[in-house]
């Protein structure tokens, strides 16, 4: 299982490059929030903690996914570590799959540890877990789907562009993806049929990142239907598959300078 060999090494690189140090900041944030929230927000401690915790998990994860993701391939090309690697019996797509899986593994561990911190903070302010807290785990799962999608996009761009441009492209698509529904609405309101058509096309092409935002629902204890979980999982999987296939097709033909 050659991609797995690459994945483990990518994970090891992230750990040794002290990527997981962000957990320390998250832990400090959660401790400070848990201690302070009781003094400034009577009755809505849980809501504040869940909102703050999930938002932090999302932002920390997104920063990691994009900034490490855009360097996954480029760094190996720039430092020429790829030369020795590709002289071994590994295909280029297997290398890409391994790099992707390795970063995903890092994000998974990072997110899991931050979730434990968030649950500890919830327990501290509420003194118990309630059924609605299960929604926090579902919201974390949606964040992971979002991170997996953002990583796939970053990897795709890094196969043909510089890290800086790849960051711009990925962030641009992420922000546009958050506002995908608004883009469609603007298209429908447009007087020009061409502009309307283009905006509708953009709506269908852009990954709808807004779909993965369940933070408010988890904070308010609103039940998240299973069908939504299934649909969003399928949506993310399809989009990730397309992005990874495009990345593999691009990278397989690339001349390594």
């Amino acid at each position, binding site marked *: 299982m050659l991609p797995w060999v690459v994945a483990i090494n990518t994970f090891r690189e992230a750990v040794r490059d002290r990527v997981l140090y962000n957990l320390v900041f998250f832990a400090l944030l959660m401790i400070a929030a848990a201690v302070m929230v009781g003094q400034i927000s009577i009755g809505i401690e849980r809501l504040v903690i869940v909102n703050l915790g999930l938002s932090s998990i999302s932002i920390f994860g997104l920063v990691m996914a994009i900034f490490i993701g855009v360097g996954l391939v480029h760094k190996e090309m720039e430092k020429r*570590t790829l030369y020795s690697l590709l002289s071994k019996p590994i295909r280029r797509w297997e290398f890409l799959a391994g790099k992707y899986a390795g970063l995903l593994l890092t994000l998974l561990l990072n997110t899991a540890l931050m979730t434990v911190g968030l649950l500890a903070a919830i327990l501290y302010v509420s003194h118990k877990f309630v059924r609605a807290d299960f929604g926090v785990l579902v919201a974390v799962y949606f964040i992971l789907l979002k991170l997996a999608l953002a990583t796939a996009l970053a990897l795709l761009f890094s196969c043909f562009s510089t890290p800086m441009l790849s960051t711009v492209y990925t962030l641009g698509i992420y922000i546009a993806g958050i506002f995908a529904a608004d883009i469609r609405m603007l298209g429908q309101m447009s007087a020009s049929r061409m502009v309307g058509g283009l905006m509708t096309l953009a709506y269908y092409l852009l990954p709808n990142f807004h779909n993965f935002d369940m933070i408010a629902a988890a904070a308010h204890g609103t039940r998240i239907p299973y069908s939504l979980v299934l649909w969003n999982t399928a949506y993310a999987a399809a989009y990730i598959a397309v992005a990874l296939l495009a990345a593999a097709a691009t990278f397989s033909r690339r001349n390594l300078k």
Partner: protein
Amino acid sequence: MPGRAIEVEGLTKDYLVGFWRKRPCRALNALTFHVEQGEVFGFLGPNGAGKTTTLKLLMGLIFPTSGTARILDRPIEDVQMHRNIGYLPEQPYFYDYLTGRELLDYFARFFGYGPRERRERVARFLQLVGLGAAGDVQLRKYSKGMLQRIGIAQAILHDPQVVFFDEPMSGLDPVGRREARDIILELKRQGRTIFFSTHILSDAEMLCDRVAVLVGGELQGVGSPEQIVSIQVQGMEVLVELPDGRALPAGWSARATRTGRRYRIEVSERELYAALDELRSREARILSVAQLKPTLEDYFLRLVGRGEASTHAAAEVPEK
């Protein structure tokens, strides 16, 4: 009779250069040669000749504009063929967060070795390249020479049939160069094929069964080092020491160079014995008599000198 290890047929590589109007620049022009199994084959050329481009093409790191190549009778696109080849890139750089031992273990995993086999191989090859004591040091703390050694180890870790070394002696001190030469000779003794690029001609002369000379992306010649330089004795060199008060015969000064009491004299083969008699009559102490042969370096410098002007011009592909 062993088959061919490497066959290259009309391999050509153009790069696109320029910012706005990209135009093709030829790095390698219709390269054709072959390497027999069990040979040590030297790939010679000055910087920018196309040596690394050729190696990158053979490794599948870049793709040819035209032409084909086969290694061990399989096309270079066949990744499974990589089970039987090893490659040391030029100025290798590896994951600096790994130790030497971890790096070799990582690469060994691609060949499906079990944990015990990996452990044993890694230890053996670390020892072989003189890094036995530095195996657990992170690569970011390795010197250039140590990186070169670990690079050699990762290239031969899986006992490949064909080994490609891009400037294997680069960055090595004299001891390291000697060790690298020994490794190459040991690989040859084991019947492996070694293809290495270098611009250190003494290494090529010492190690290679055959060499190819590349200048400006064009193959200038392939053959044994002797064939390449078309060895012919160009004369004789006599090294003598004259006692105090003695001098060389009149008219010899043009072909002699003096260092203290020692003289280096060039004479033709025909004149040798007469010249030795003359020197003995002057009580000269004859230190050595040797043939004067053109070296690979002479040939190389002649080629490079001749091709200097055309090297840059030839690289440009006329636009259609």
